[in-house]
């Protein structure tokens, strides 16, 4: 059973088409990361799912329920969506308890029940003892926790988070992200996380959806999307990638700088090959048959390093795990150990 199903969604803002023929599904309990450059429509997609924008074409289903299709439009307050916009948008006039309790239906639950749920949410998000503070007295990370608690308190069918960690520093970001993902998983909550941090998407989600100009152009598991990009450009959106000139022979062999094929009379297809920097191994055993290059620079990151290497006129970047003992100015042999991803020129 899909918790969320979008099909052929089209959204116009004024005269501008922001989402165009967008389709996507998400199973119950799955977490999706929406990756894409600024302005590609990520926020608009979230707001359409929340019902804050009405699509002009296509349909949206929550489970079996059709919430948006031509004349059908379930208003946002009937969708039970946990929406966490950028910067959290806490209500500045309410304290933390009141913020969290805000969406709990007062006509259904008693005061005690509401208080109980609020306390649970405070505990769940690690914010015990902050209930009586006002939003402006909290740090950015704490505000994000409260915004999430407020969204979860209504037991939403889907949680939508718009770059919730964008404003935080690296350490806090990792910690909070881990907490939030664990929390969502423990509640078996279906969620969509908008981010433009590639690693954040890969590490948190079950499904990665890559967006370009109002469309989801590729989606799949993180491993899938990372290792099998459908175009060189999309390879870059999930991680560093080398895009090298290449040509494919009729016999299936590929000619590129790390695998030069000498003479050939076969018909060839010109194109590019995509290599991840960690798919190239370096070693010191240089021979006449090996592909050799000169180390021109080493960017040291601690756990690994990015080594810049010049081969002939090409300039490659290779990621090597630490510890290592290569130095700048050294000759090294290069070996490509990863899959061949050839993309023919159009």
């Amino acid at each position, binding site marked *: 059973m899909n918790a969320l199903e979008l099909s052929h969604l089209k959204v116009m803002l004024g005269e501008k088409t922001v989402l165009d023929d967008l389709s996507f599904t998400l199973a119950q309990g799955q977490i999706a990361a929406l990756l894409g450059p600024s302005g590609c429509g990520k926020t608009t997609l979230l707001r359409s799912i929340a019902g804050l924008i009405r699509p002009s074409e296509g349909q949206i289903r929550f489970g079996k329920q059709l919430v948006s299709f031509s004349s059908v439009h379930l208003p946002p307050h009937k969708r039970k969506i946990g929406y966490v916009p950028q910067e959290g*948008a806490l209500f500045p006039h309410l304290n933390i308890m009141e913020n969290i309790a805000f969406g709990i239906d007062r006509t259904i639950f008693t005061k005690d029940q509401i208080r109980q749920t609020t306390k649970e949410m405070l505990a769940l998000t690690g914010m015990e003892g902050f209930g009586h503070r006002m939003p402006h007295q909290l740090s950015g990370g704490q505000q994000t926790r409260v915004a999430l608690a407020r969204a979860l308190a209504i037991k939403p069918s889907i949680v939508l988070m718009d770059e919730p960690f964008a404003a935080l520093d690296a350490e806090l970001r990792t910690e909070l992200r881990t907490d939030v993902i664990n929390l969502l998983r423990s509640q078996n909550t279906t969620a969509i996380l908008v981010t433009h941090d590639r690693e954040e998407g890969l590490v948190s989600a079950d499904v990665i959806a890559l967006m370009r100009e109002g469309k989801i152009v590729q989606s799949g598991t993180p491993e899938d999307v990372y290792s099998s990009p459908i175009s060189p450009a999309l390879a870059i959106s999930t991680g560093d990638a080398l895009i090298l000139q290449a040509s494919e022979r009729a016999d299936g062999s590929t000619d590129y700088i790390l695998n030069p094929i000498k003479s050939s009379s076969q018909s060839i297809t010109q194109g590019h090959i995509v290599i991840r920097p960690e798919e190239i191994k370096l070693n010191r055993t240089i021979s006449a048959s090996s592909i050799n290059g000169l180390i021109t620079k080493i960017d040291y990151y601690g756990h690994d390093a990015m080594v810049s290497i010049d081969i002939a006129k090409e300039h490659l970047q290779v990621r090597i795990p630490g510890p290592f003992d290569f130095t700048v100015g050294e000759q090294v042999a290069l070996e490509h150990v990863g899959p061949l991803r050839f993309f023919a020129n159009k």
Partner: protein
Amino acid sequence: MVTTTPNATHNWPAAHTSSQRAWRVGLNVAVGVVAALSLIPFIYLLVRASDKPFSEISALLLRTKTLEVLTTTALLVTCVVVITLTLGVAIASGLHFVALPFRRLLIIPTVLPLAIPSYVFTYTWVALIPSFSGFAAAVFILSLSTIPYIILATLAGLRSVDGSQIEVARSLGLNYRQTFTRVIWPQIKGHVSAGALLVGLYTMSDFGAVSLLNVETLTVTIQNMYRASYDRSAAAVISFVLIAFSILFVFGDEAIKRRSAKGQIVKTFSVKNSLIRKNYLRVSITAVILIFTIIAVIIPFYVLFSRFFSNPVPIDYTDLARATFATISVAAVGALIALLLSAPIGLLLSGKMTKFGQISNKIIVIGHALPGVVVGLALVSVGSKLGPLYQTTLLLAFAYALLFLAKSVISMSSSLARVPSGVKDVAATLGMNPWSVVRKVIAPIAAPGIGVGTILVFLTAMKELPATLMLRPTGFETLATNIWSAGSINRFNEAAPYALILVLVAAIPTFLISRPDHDDRAYIDNSAGGDK
């Protein structure tokens, strides 16, 4: 009254160097002088009132007439505040949230009544309906002329509420009405209360409309006592009643503000408002605005124009030009003086909040509660002892500045508070002394807001009547005094050209203040979805 206590989260760089210390001392001295100037009317009234023996004061206060007038005033203020609040908040919310046709332009007619002085308003309606008079008529006129205060204040409040909060509230299961009462109203009620305070003070101190409509309020009583018998002590005693009444309002407003959300802004990613496209809302709000425009703008303008053109008496254009020039120049000088006087207190309030700064601010705010009649009375008396200054236009301009100083201070301190504190620090580390920081960094950033405040003083001063009547040099006529001296409705034709020019001249700054182009944060949403 927006007694802006800016979010002084940051202190002015600590006064380490001698230039900074000198700056601080200078600022405090300047603020002290301004606060002392604002106290002049109070001190005068106190001295005057104490001329009378206590028994006479209590007899004056307790006589039936006084109580009657007090009741009338209270009733009038209550009616006007309730009506303007209801209509003003509805109109402003409609303009802000609903996809109305020409919504940006629709703001203009809703604030245009600010350009029409209440006495001109009254003239036009009396010209239309000769029997137009009495309490209900006064409520009608004063409500129409003061609604813009509520609309402007509410709009300012609404624009400060981030759209993303509304979206979150909607996603948490609230419909539009619940979103308004639980998210928006708590955050704007401080602004709305400030608008209501302005309406209350305006109504209390209005002289023109009520006296033309034969409604005796405290202001009319004071003016009559002063004019008829020159019994200034009695006038002073009644003035105190009026002041006490006004102070009650100021404190009421402060109490509401204290309980309402603090202006503490949680950093939010600003989201545009998506406009509501419900047809019944679009039609009803547009209808309300149209009706309001017809009775508060079109009818007065129509009457003024038709009287102007049907005027059988030849218009004395030299006189008209002279009065126009006099009005503009005195009001402009008054606005300039107010600007200068409000600079020190604005700077002080935008920095570290001190007790002294707070007290000075309160004094100036309460000074705003003083009606023109009272300030006029005080300055006539003080001025007559000043020799050469008495009966000069400069004294009149100074009276305007004193009367409307609070308007200038409010916009000054809120604009200055908006200057990011980091900017001041950076300027200081780049080697600028405090004065250069003000000149090169703070002033340019805060200028637009301060400009609006100054324009507001200018606009109000042009329309001011009671203080002008008392303080103008003999033979000096402004547009307002010319309109007034036509005296009765029978000679309204003679006053029409002056009224028309005054309204047209005042319409320009009003237009500038309404800033229809200012709201660029909303866009038309395709969603027709709302409450179902």
